[in-house]
């Protein structure tokens, strides 16, 4: 009966460490947030489940030979999964509002201050001796402020793999919290009169412009920032498949079957990085607080940039659409719309906010490229 004894000794209860137990609880919390609070469930549900699975004592699902190990090694470490997701996101993105009003790109640029402000915050925390972040860690943490999941995961997998779990969780959680985080900042930085500014209807953008746009972005990336080529290249590829209209079946698969499959794997793979060793420490608290700061700073600089631009341009823009520059597509644009409606119930800002919103995606991919080049 020593085999029976072995079974008991192998049981989870007998081997459970406090760290694993805590991580399983954290996994369950993520699942709870995903299901009951609708926090980005497409990612947080698989991440939470992966967190539980990888922390089951003795199951070894994250060890060599285990399913989560294969998923993580094939798709996360190589950067393949985030890039395929980005292709799918590209195939779902409509650049029409951006092309109709290209100066909103500056709002998307300004909101990236959230990224780099956070880098400085992380270095300051380190200089205070609270945590121990290298500059690479700081850069990876800053990308949380890009409010763009795949970009965060891609950068973290290159610059700070051991922080990947915490960074991904922070990024998706704060993206889900955008409707709570942004409105107070937006209201504090704008006057009632500014919020009531109505914007003229956007012009119709021709199919040709939409087809040329991804190729132009690709050209600029190739000429000026090759380190952003994987992210923006796949993004533009997805978008070109959509807008060209000649490969609808590929575009459809990129948006659906392929993207869903990769999302499941990406979530499980990120979850498998959630080990107590890397997550249960003061650095994670630092990451979570810095991530929140990143979102707040990005929101603020986006709004302020809009106000600044209004000093120079004739037809003023409503500063509320500046906050959409942080990305979190399309949540942040909806927040702009909602806050706008509170000030003026005839003021529909949604389409106007989509411009800076997708600009923010391009902006954080550019920022990611700079960082990858800086440390390359």
């Amino acid at each position, binding site marked *: 009966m020593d085999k029976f004894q072995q079974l008991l000794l192998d049981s989870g209860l007998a081997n459970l460490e406090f760290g694993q137990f805590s991580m399983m609880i954290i996994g369950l919390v993520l699942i709870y947030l995903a299901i009951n609070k609708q926090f980005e469930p497409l990612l947080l549900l698989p991440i939470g489940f992966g967190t539980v699975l990888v922390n089951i004592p003795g199951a070894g699902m994250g060890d060599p030979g285990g399913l989560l190990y294969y998923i993580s090694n094939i798709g996360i470490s190589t950067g393949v999964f985030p890039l395929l997701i980005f292709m799918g996101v590209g195939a779902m993105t409509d650049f029409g509002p951006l092309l109709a009003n290209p100066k909103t790109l500056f709002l998307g640029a300004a909101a990236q201050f959230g990224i780099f402000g956070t880098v*400085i915050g992380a270095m300051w925390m380190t200089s205070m001796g609270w945590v121990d972040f290298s500059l690479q860690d700081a850069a990876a943490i800053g990308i949380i402020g890009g409010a763009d999941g795949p970009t965060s995961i891609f950068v973290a997998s290159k610059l700070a793999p051991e922080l990947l779990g915490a960074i991904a969780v922070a990024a998706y959680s704060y993206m889900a919290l955008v409707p709570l985080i942004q409105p107070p900042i937006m209201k504090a930085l704008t006057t009632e009169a500014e919020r009531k500014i109505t914007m003229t209807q956007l012009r119709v953008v021709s199919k040709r412009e939409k087809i040329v746009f991804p190729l*132009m972005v690709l050209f600029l990336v190739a000429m000026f920032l090759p380190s952003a080529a994987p992210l923006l290249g796949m993004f533009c590829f997805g978008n070109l498949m959509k807008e060209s209209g000649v490969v609808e079946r590929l575009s459809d698969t990129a948006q659906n079957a392929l993207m869903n499959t990769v999302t499941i794997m990406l979530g499980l793979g990120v979850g498998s990085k959630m080990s107590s060793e890397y997550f249960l420490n003061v650095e994670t608290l630092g990451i979570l607080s810095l991530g929140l700061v990143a979102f707040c700073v990005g929101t603020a600089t986006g709004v302020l940039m809009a106000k600044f631009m209004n000093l120079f341009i004739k037809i003023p823009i409503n500063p509320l659409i500046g906050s959409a520059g942080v990305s979190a597509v399309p949540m942040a644009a909806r927040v702009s719309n909602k806050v706008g409606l509170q000030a003026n119930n005839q003021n529909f800002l949604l389409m106007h906010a989509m411009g800076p919103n997708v600009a923010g995606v391009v902006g954080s991919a550019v920022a990611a490229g*700079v960082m990858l080049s800086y440390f390359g």
Partner: protein
Amino acid sequence: MSDIMWDGVSLMVMGMGSVFVFLALLVLGITIMSQILMRLPEVEVVARPQSRNSDEEMAEVAAVAAAVKLVHQR
């Protein structure tokens, strides 16, 4: 200010600089492109009639096949 803070500031200057320069180039590019494209004659880029992909052609073939079969079975 400590060295590592300076590293952060340097990364920020470089990063935000690149982001603004890149997106400014993009604004410029979009504006030029839109101007050019709007002045070009209104050619329908994607010519539908003679432009069906192999799927649609397959569907046509299938439709013809079905019709033939139907006729034949009568």
